[in-house]
């Protein structure tokens, strides 16, 4: 039963189309591939975080982190406002008392994981970090799946139109 995951992906797609259009309308046309890639990546990350809808650390952190890159964009500002408010309220709460003594290897890996997951550095408790990571992984997977499918459809459509044109 893939209903939940499908809905995640659908949500992501909807948000992504929105963010793509917002970005496209708000920034001047980038000229090179790298800028376009960054814009696409940014819109995709924002869409993923927006689809998650804000009760996770990673989604808010991702929004605020992406906002730094689009400080002038009204869309990012809008999302950022809500995200920042929540972040402020949550940061303190997140510091739980974790008195466990981690082994060295685990410690290093935990730090690495914290650097990977957006907002991970805010989380002290290892268990909570793992849970955030898992949530993040789900949405990351959705993002990858959708983008891959879109790329494939795009390719397919292009080939099709090219074939038709060439005939």
């Amino acid at each position, binding site marked *: 039963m893939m209903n939940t*995951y499908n809905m995640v992906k659908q949500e992501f797609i909807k948000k992504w189309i929105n963010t793509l259009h917002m970005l496209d309308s708000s920034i001047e046309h980038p000229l090179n591939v790298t800028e*376009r*890639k960054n814009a*696409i990546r940014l819109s995709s990350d924002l869409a993923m975080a927006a689809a998650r*809808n804000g009760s996770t650390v990673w989604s808010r952190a991702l929004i605020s982190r992406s906002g730094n890159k689009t400080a002038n964009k009204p869309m990012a500002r809008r999302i950022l406002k809500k995200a920042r408010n929540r972040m402020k309220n949550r940061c303190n709460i997140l510091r739980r008392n974790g008195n466990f003594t*981690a082994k060295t290897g685990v410690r290093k890996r935990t730090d690495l*994981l914290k650097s990977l997951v957006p907002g991970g550095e805010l989380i002290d408790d290892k268990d909570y970090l793992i849970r955030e990571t898992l949530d993040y992984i789900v949405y990351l997977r959705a993002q990858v799946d959708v983008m891959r*499918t879109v790329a494939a459809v795009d390719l397919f459509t292009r080939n099709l139109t090219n074939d038709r044109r060439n005939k």
Partner: protein
Amino acid sequence: MDLTGGFGARSGGIRPCREPIGLESLHLGDEFRQLVTTLPPENAGGSFTALLELPPTQAVELLHFTDSSSSQAAVTGIGGEIAPPLHSFGGTLAFPSNSVLMERAARFSVIATEQQNGNISGETPTSSVPSNSSANLDRVKTEPAETDSSQRLISDSAIENQIPCRSQNNRNGKRKDFEKKGKSSTKKNKSSEENEKLPYVHVRARRGQATDSHSLAERARREKINARMKLLQELVPGCDKIQGTALVLDEIINHVQSLQRQVEMLSMRLAAVNPRIDFNLDTILASENGSLMDGSFNGTPMQLAWPHQAIETEQSFHHRQLPPPPTQQWPFDGLNQPVWGREEDQADGNDNSNLMAVSENVMVASANLHPNQVKMEL
């Protein structure tokens, strides 16, 4: 455009499960066992730590089943996982266990973590509340570690971790559907996963060990992590020598890195092919734009003709029940939903069929909606 419009899946129905973890709750005794055994099979909500039993196991399963099917790549590092070809990925997606895992993980993240509001504050980690509906109880006693049965795995971890908890009042009639999030009392426990049930976790105070709440909490965590490790060792061949949480973290890190790299690659691919940023709509919903950019090609008649062929060949995919369109203002509600819902439903890994189904719907959509109209509505 409200990007923060609610994702329809408001998990909820969590009764205010407040499981006060006083010192007494952590002491073991006969009374506790009685409590545990006589608890009604319904759990109001998994607590914070109860849910935490799930993630690493799920993470491992996710990692194992979503990485390439042919190799247990999780252990060896996912560096080579960058942008696998679509077909292989589609094949991976076709794995029933894979989709089950993603579904489970998606439910977990969407439902359970939605309940996190206010839950973290003031909640001690040992308040683990075992879970679910009575239907799941019989799964508690299952064989250890079948890798393809994540449910059994979870219940195994649950069996291995036993923490006492006076949580009977917190038994939740856990729904498998999304419910409105209940902003009930200050201390909601998280709803445990629908598919998992986490029975009580017993922490036995060993002789000579401290019994204050902190150390008990630590010990509970450690034991839980150790249980996860054991499951992991059963999952991953040849990792018996690896000890501790490091393995879980390694796999998780690898997976996250690989996914992020894939996103990077895909966005580069999309950027390289399309001269515009909003390629999405242009190429998918209305390839007229693409054709117009190319110049001479008028795709409209082609598009109208094409769906017919596609429809004929893809009749088999139409049996899928279309999901109800969401209430959000989305101009393509009736059209886009079935497009993606259907496409993603394909569990057969037949990518060409997927693309055909998608494209067919896409073309139908484009035939009905003018692309400019689309843009204005957005």
